């Protein structure tokens, strides 16, 4: 896979006209886990990155991928807390608090991904129970399209629209 320099990031429009952007290096990692073939199990992890100072955008600079302790099946993924949290803490510390937790991602074996009932329940629970800087994002990588949702502590979850290049 070439990291073609003309490759665009995945940029989504957020409520209020702000942006949520999955950087090219991160997208290249996600692409490796796309469930394009029958034997590939679901994958996922956390999103890490920056809230730009001027408030114009939130950028995903890094992600975690399945780690030992996680459980993967064709349409099921369980992310165990400890090892992912350790990576979140490390990124936060070495960036002087600027690289922060931005949400969750996982794959679906369908072209245009939509959240399952399990996904919705987990997202709603997380929005209430976790400690984070608002908002956080949920990304589902399908076999053709990638979609994103934005969530707030009050439980509101809205889909974001992708900018077509």
């Amino acid at each position, binding site marked *: 896979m070439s990291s073609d320099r003309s490759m665009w*990031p995945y940029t989504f429009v957020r409520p209020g006209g702000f942006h949520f952007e999955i950087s090219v290096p991160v997208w290249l990692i996600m692409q490796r886990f796309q469930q394009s073939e029958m034997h590939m199990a679901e994958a*996922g992890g956390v999103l890490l990155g920056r809230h*730009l100072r001027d408030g114009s955008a939130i950028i995903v600079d890094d992600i975690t991928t399945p780690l030992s302790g996680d459980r993967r099946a064709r349409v099921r993924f369980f992310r165990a807390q400890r090892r992912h949290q350790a990576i979140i803490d490390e990124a*936060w510390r070495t*960036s002087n608090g*600027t690289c922060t937790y931005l949400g969750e991602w996982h794959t679906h074996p369908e072209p245009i991904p939509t959240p399952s009932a399990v996904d919705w329940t987990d997202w709603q629970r*997380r929005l209430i129970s976790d400690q984070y800087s608002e908002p956080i994002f949920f990304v589902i990588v399908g076999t053709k399209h990638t979609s994103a949702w934005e969530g707030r502590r009050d439980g509101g979850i809205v889909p974001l629209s992708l900018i077509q290049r």
Partner: protein
Amino acid sequence: MANVQMQFEQFNDTIRLGRFEENATLREKRDIIRRKLKANLPVVFKKYNEICPEYYFLDQGSYEMDTGTKPLDGDYDIDQGLYFLVSITEWPDPVKLKERVFEALDGHTNRVELRRSCVTVFYSCNDEPLYHVDVAVYSESSMNTDGKSYHAKGKQHSLPENRYWEVSNPQQLSDTIFDKFPGAEDRKQFRRVIRYWKRWKVVNFTAGGASAPNGIGLTLLTYYHFQPRYTDAFANKHNDLRAMRELVEVVLASFQLVYDEDEKAYVERLIVKLPIEPWNDVFDRMTARQMRTLKDKMTVLKDALVYAEGVADTRAACERLQMVFGKDFPVPEKQETASVHPPAITSSGNSA
């Protein structure tokens, strides 16, 4: 999307070459040449039993226009106009007058050349070029019956048709160019955009290569096609990225098909006419191949500008701009672009 105005202005501050008034070193180098001519011209003319005409100096080129950029290779280019109070009928052969100037400067450094458009004094240190001074010779306007100033063209041993006086008025050219943008803020952006072009040229064309578009051509392209752009005009918040992107797009669209005698085919050319007499195309010496290269490189520039404008991340935008503008275009560290947040505590997750 990405706001890179701060980085563009930082880039401008890094590459900008001040005017003579601000730059003592370059002013001193200019004055050395002026003093040398003052001391030697009368002697040289006397040698030929001629009376040394009266003359004066005028700054010209990017120093005068305040559109200069620092050279990457250290070879500064200083332009001087030398105006003789003589008419073109008194001195029908302009090369003869240039020869007097050449003789007055020859031996000053170990490389002085009489070139087509000027007499050039090169300064170097251990074979590394330091700077060169181009002295362009003129016949002053008040001396000519038509009231026009003329530029002495031609070299020693040039055929008669290649030695001629060409109507030329650098001051009028400069006034014409800058009067188009009377607003102080518009004019600042106009000058910055010219500097971005010039640095792009130095970074993307091999040094000394004849294939590079000349500085006056890039200045005139900006004069003809630039539109000031602001994110907030009332607060004087400029948008150099958009101004530059739109300019490059318009310039790319203005290449036109012209029949080329050497290639025996229609080729795409940029025609950039001087907005004052003699109205010549300042790119007319570029070959069809050089024009193609210019268009290709401009397309790469446009793609980078479109990308920088389209991505949300300031850093990603700057990384891409650095590829076309060179290492003086700043790329901020990730930390500099982001706000600080308290640590997050997450829980295990289930998805399906």
